[in-house]
């Protein structure tokens, strides 16, 4: 399931909905991405006031659905969910949530890790950071491209 929304969400409820969808589920692996308290510059990072997530709605839904289908074709996943927020978020707030449910744990772990890596390089979201002195668009991390390459 894909949800792209401004609103916050409850992790327990999402995991419980996923887990209760099939009695043969024994494992749920999940990931939450949060707004950190400093901007993303490697050197002389500043305290962060907020980030604003912009996205390309139609393409976001399509790409997230595609990577979810891809994960289900590669691992034995009973169900999965991707929630990604957009709009203005403050330090400590949740940005993204991915969870995968399976019979045994390694399928869930690998599919969840894969979904996050692909989401990072495929889903059309952009982060604008605002700190005391500046606003800047977050630059992509080379390590994200490498992480996504692992699954090819």
């Amino acid at each position: 399931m894909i949800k792209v929304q401004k609103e916050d969400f409850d992790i327990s409820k999402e995991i419980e909905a996923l887990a209760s969808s099939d009695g043969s589920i024994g494992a749920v692996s999940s990931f939450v991405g949060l707004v950190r308290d400093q901007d993303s510059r490697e050197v002389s990072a500043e305290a962060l006031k907020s980030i604003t997530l912009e996205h390309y709605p139609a393409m976001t839904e399509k790409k997230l659905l595609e990577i979810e289908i891809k994960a289900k074709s590669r691992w034995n996943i009973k169900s999965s969910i991707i929630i990604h927020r957009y709009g203005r978020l403050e330090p400590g707030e949740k940005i993204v949530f991915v969870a995968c449910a399976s019979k045994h744990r390694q399928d869930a772990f690998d599919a969840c890790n894969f979904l996050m890596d692909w989401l990072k390089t495929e889903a059309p979201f952009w982060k604008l950071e605002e700190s005391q002195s500046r606003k800047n668009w977050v630059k992509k991390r080379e390590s994200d491209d490498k992480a996504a390459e692992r699954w090819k």
Partner: protein
Amino acid sequence: MKILYFAWLRQRIGTDTEEFVLPNEIQTVEDLINWLITRGPGYSDAFAKPEVIRAAVNLEYVNFDHSLKNEDEVAFFPPVTGG
């Protein structure tokens, strides 16, 4: 043709969407970029380094040699940084 701009491309160009009839001489995404650059300093600034820009046509990532049709939705944006 509909063109969408996101993140700092949107800010430099000063608009998020524009629509127009595709000129006949524009065959590919690269042709389109070269034509957009002639439309003003916001565009030439936005497309100054085309190698850091990604393009999508009808919601799919494409290379700059991708062929365009008048009914396409084309989007230009920086590398994605969600998650």
